[in-house]
């Protein structure tokens, strides 16, 4: 089946389409045009179409009727392009329709029957054509309506899917004829060229005075048929026809001639279009006397006020504005409702689709509604509806209520600079302020406040410190030399055993002296080590110094010099070797324990160490008679004990340490890994007492004792005093009121 061609845009559409897919123009009426009507009706439609076309051709040659040829030259020069296009399309359609008619004509067509069934109508139509060609189409329209209304029974039934070819050809002919019928083009009239156009007002006609072809179709009064119930539409139509008979064709209406009544009424109900500025189109003359006329919307036909059809009475003036535009595509002459800014943008659609009627309307949450920037987006001082009117220029010249392009668009103001107003409650405001303060504080550098020190406390500390210092210095300044304070009575067993072991050491023994104390406690260790070194020197023991601390070799030299001062018979060149610094810590000790010759080949003074008399016969640590560890650190002592002593289990080891590590290293003496131990000045004092040789410990003993006692007193009394001061103030219990 061939596709349907839209009469307005000329594009093809499917066979069963009711509305054009491209321009949304109606292709067929609500009543199924495909319903197979009587064969006579189909034949009559085709006859009517042909007669209409003949009339159009005749009108071209009638006198008084301005033909296209007569004023065609001048009119053709002033013809707008859109009109020319329409004419071309209509000509093309006519040619197509003629071609279709020629294709579908058959000898079995019920055309003769149609003619025979309604001979009166055809004869009547022919009479009307002969008498008044302009009313012929209207008469035929009326006849067609009668046929459709009181059609033969069975013929109105639409449910005949299988249509024989002959019958299909008939209904196609009828379809073609119906396509050109007024029912397919409600509210429109057909011009002399067979193009369905919207009827123009007389004011438009006055504007388009050079375009006589744009005539409003003449109303052909139709005779009333007997026995027929009077239709209100028909009565209106007849009346219009009568009025048209009285008045001259609108094409010949000159600006000076009176306007028909029906047209006046039409003009009074609609405002006039805006004057256009296009070439060839005269502007609407001011004061022409013609009231402003509105172009009625699609679907509504202007009529007189006296016998207004019911459906027309319901239509209020200006109501077309409120109705939705039914023809979104731009069609000349069609009324398109403009989208004014006064309309709210975000109104929810009131009409629901058919399949969603059961669903409740969506309710926007409050926070979402608050975020809708409705007020700030909408421009202020929006143009009201009164400003829109007739367009004065452009393609929409003479038309009102169209989409504003220039003037009204320019009235839309820019959105304000302010941010969209949000609906924020108090709690959210507080939270936002809090977040802002946190972010601002995070960027700032926080100044660390200096610890506030109470002046009283610092003065007390200074006073106590000075007192201790003074009391400690007094015995030194006095040079008491252990005459003030009593000497120790109880001797530590580890000190006694050490003394005993060294005392019983064989002469010319080799002692490995490990000097690993730091300069911070060099005073204590030097004081504690001197009696032992002196005792060894007194035994003529060969002393081999080594150190794992960088300052150890220098401290060893100092110690040796001090000890030699107290023991002048000791030959340091022969019996004293300083191997210097042993790098690597525990790793170096492990290597030294395995290969001492390779690990420390030279002395601190860069001589060959293993060629000295002391070390000539030494191949390993096992050749040493004793090991003496001098260190203030418990870790250093532990490393020496763990790394070296297990390799020489038969060699006695001794330890001189500080008072601060004595408690932690005592288990090594308790486990017999160490044979003797001296800790601090107290141990040194004991050793000196055992040696019966006063030394540095004796020089410091008085101060030491004074200091110990002073510390005890300060801690005890200071602690008690501060604990009393720090107690919370006791408040007297409040007496309870005795109530009767």
């Amino acid at each position, binding site marked *: 089946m061939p596709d349907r061609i839209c009469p307005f845009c000329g594009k093809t559409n499917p066979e069963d389409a009711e509305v054009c897919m491209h321009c949304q123009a109606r292709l067929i009426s609500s009543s199924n045009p495909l319903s197979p009507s009587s064969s006579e009706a189909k034949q009559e439609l085709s006859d009517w179409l042909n007669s209409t076309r003949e009339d159009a051709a005749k009108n071209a040659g009638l006198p008084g009727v301005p033909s296209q040829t007569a004023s065609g030259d001048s009119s053709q020069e002033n013809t707008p392009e859109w009109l020319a296009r329409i004419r071309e399309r209509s000509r093309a359609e006519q040619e197509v329709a003629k071609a279709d008619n020629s294709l579908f004509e058959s000898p079995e067509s019920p055309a003769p029957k149609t003619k025979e069934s309604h001979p009166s109508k055809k004869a009547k139509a022919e009479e009307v054509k002969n008498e008044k060609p302009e009313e012929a189409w209207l008469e035929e329209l009326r006849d067609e309506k009668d046929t459709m209304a009181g059609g033969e029974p069975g013929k109105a039934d639409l449910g005949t899917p299988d249509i024989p070819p002959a019958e299909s050809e008939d209904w196609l002919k009828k379809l073609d004829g119906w396509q050109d019928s007024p029912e397919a083009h409600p509210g429109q009239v057909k011009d002399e060229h067979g193009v369905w156009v919207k009827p123009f007002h007389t004011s438009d006609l006055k504007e388009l005075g050079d375009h006589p072809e744009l005539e409003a179709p003449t109303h052909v009064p139709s005779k009333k048929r007997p026995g027929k119930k009077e239709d209100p539409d028909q009565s209106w139509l007849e009346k219009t026809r009568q009025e048209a008979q009285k008045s001259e064709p609108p094409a010949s209406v000159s600006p000076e001639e009176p306007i028909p009544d029906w047209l006046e009424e039409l003009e009074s109900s609609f405002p006039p279009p805006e004057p256009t500025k296009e070439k060839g189109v005269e502007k609407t003359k001011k004061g022409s006397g013609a009231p402003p006329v509105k172009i009625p919307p699609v679907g509504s036909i202007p009529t007189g006020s006296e016998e207004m059809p019911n459906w027309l009475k319901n239509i209020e003036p200006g109501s077309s504005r409120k109705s939705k535009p039914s023809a979104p595509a731009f069609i000349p002459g069609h009324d398109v409702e403009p989208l004014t800014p006064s309309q709210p943008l975000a109104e929810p659609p009131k009409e629901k689709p058919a399949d969603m009627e059961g669903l409740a309307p969506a309710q926007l949450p409050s926070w979402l509604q608050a975020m809708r920037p409705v007020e700030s987006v909408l421009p202020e001082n929006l143009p009201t509806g009164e400003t829109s009117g007739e367009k004065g220029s452009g393609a929409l010249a003479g038309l009102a209520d169209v989409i504003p392009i220039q003037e009204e668009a320019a009235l839309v103001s820019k959105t304000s600079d302010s941010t969209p107003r949000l609906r924020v409650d108090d709690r959210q405001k507080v939270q936002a302020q809090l977040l802002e303060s946190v972010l601002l504080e995070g960027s700032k550098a926080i100044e660390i406040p200096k610890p506030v020190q109470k002046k009283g406390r610092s003065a007390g500390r200074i006073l106590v410190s000075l007192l201790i210092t003074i009391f400690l210095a007094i015995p030194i300044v006095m040079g008491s030399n252990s005459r003030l304070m009593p000497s120790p009575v109880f001797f530590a067993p580890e000190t006694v055993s050490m003394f005993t072991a060294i005392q019983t050491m064989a002469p010319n023994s080799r002692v490995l002296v490990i000097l690993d104390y730091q300069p911070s406690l060099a*005073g204590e260790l030097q004081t504690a080590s001197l009696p032992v070194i002196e005792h060894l020197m007194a035994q003529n023991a060969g002393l081999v110094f080594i150190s794992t601390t960088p300052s150890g070799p220098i401290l060893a030299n100092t110690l040796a010099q001090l000890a030699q001062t107290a023991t002048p018979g000791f030959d340091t060149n022969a019996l004293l070797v300083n191997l210097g610094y042993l790098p690597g*810590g*525990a790793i170096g000790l492990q290597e030294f324990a395995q290969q001492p010759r390779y690990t420390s080949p030279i002395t601190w003074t860069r001589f060959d160490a293993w060629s000295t008399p002391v070390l000539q016969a030494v191949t390993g640590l096992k050749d040493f008679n004793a090991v003496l560890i001098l260190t203030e650190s418990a870790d250093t002592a532990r490393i020496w004990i763990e790394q070296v002593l297990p390799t020489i289990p038969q060699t006695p080891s001794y330890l001189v340490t500080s008072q*601060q*590590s004595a408690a932690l290293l005592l288990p*090594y003496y308790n486990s017999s890994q160490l044979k003797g131990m001296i800790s*601090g000045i107290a141990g040194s004092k004991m050793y000196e007492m055992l040696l019966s040789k006063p030394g540095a410990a004796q020089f410091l003993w008085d101060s030491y004792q004074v200091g110990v006692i002073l510390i005890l007193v300060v801690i005890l009394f200071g602690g008690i005093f501060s604990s009393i001061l720090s107690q919370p103030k006791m408040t007297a219990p409040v007496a309870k009121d005795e109530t009767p």
Partner: protein
Amino acid sequence: MNLIELIWTFVGFFLTLFVFSYIFGDNILFRFASYLLVGVSAGYLMVIIFYKVLIPKIVIPFSTGSTLQKTLVIIPLALGTLLLFKLSPRLARLGNVSMGYLVGAGAAVLVGGVIFGTLFPQTGAAVAAFGISGTTVAPGIQILGAAILLIGTITSLAYFQFGMRGKSMDKPRQSKLMIFISKVGQIFIAVTLGALFAGAMLAALTALIERLGSLWTAITLFLH
């Protein structure tokens, strides 16, 4: 005493006073002495490393050693060069091999020394304390002392055990026996720490006395 010794004695005298000025609060003299100590210690250590590590263990074998010695020196030289890249934040990853070498060697030495130097001997000593042969103390007292030492050792070790048990629904917690044992261990540890604290005070006291003595010596030298 020669002049150099005299000068250095007075240098020590003033530096001691600079540090003692901290009794009155932080001041520029104390800071000067602190900064001087850091710089001198770092410089001295650098000299020691240069003369006692780099020269005898790398430079001399590489320059005057045999082919085998030279070959063997290449490995620590390469590792040492890689270790220098630790100074650069971007290239620090190159020194990971050298650091791993050091860490591995140190860990092995530590583990071996601890096992043979502390773990076995101390455990044996805790048991050997019950030996009553060759002692002058009465056996009962010796055994009592050994028992106290053993209990103290075990409870002190138990104090550092934080293992807990608990059923699926109950909060994990220690058993009551473990809580009691750890409490006893706390007593012994507190006694030891008190002794260490007292020893630290006495060591500092000795250092103060020794410094006061050196100050007095310098004063007497100056006066004479």
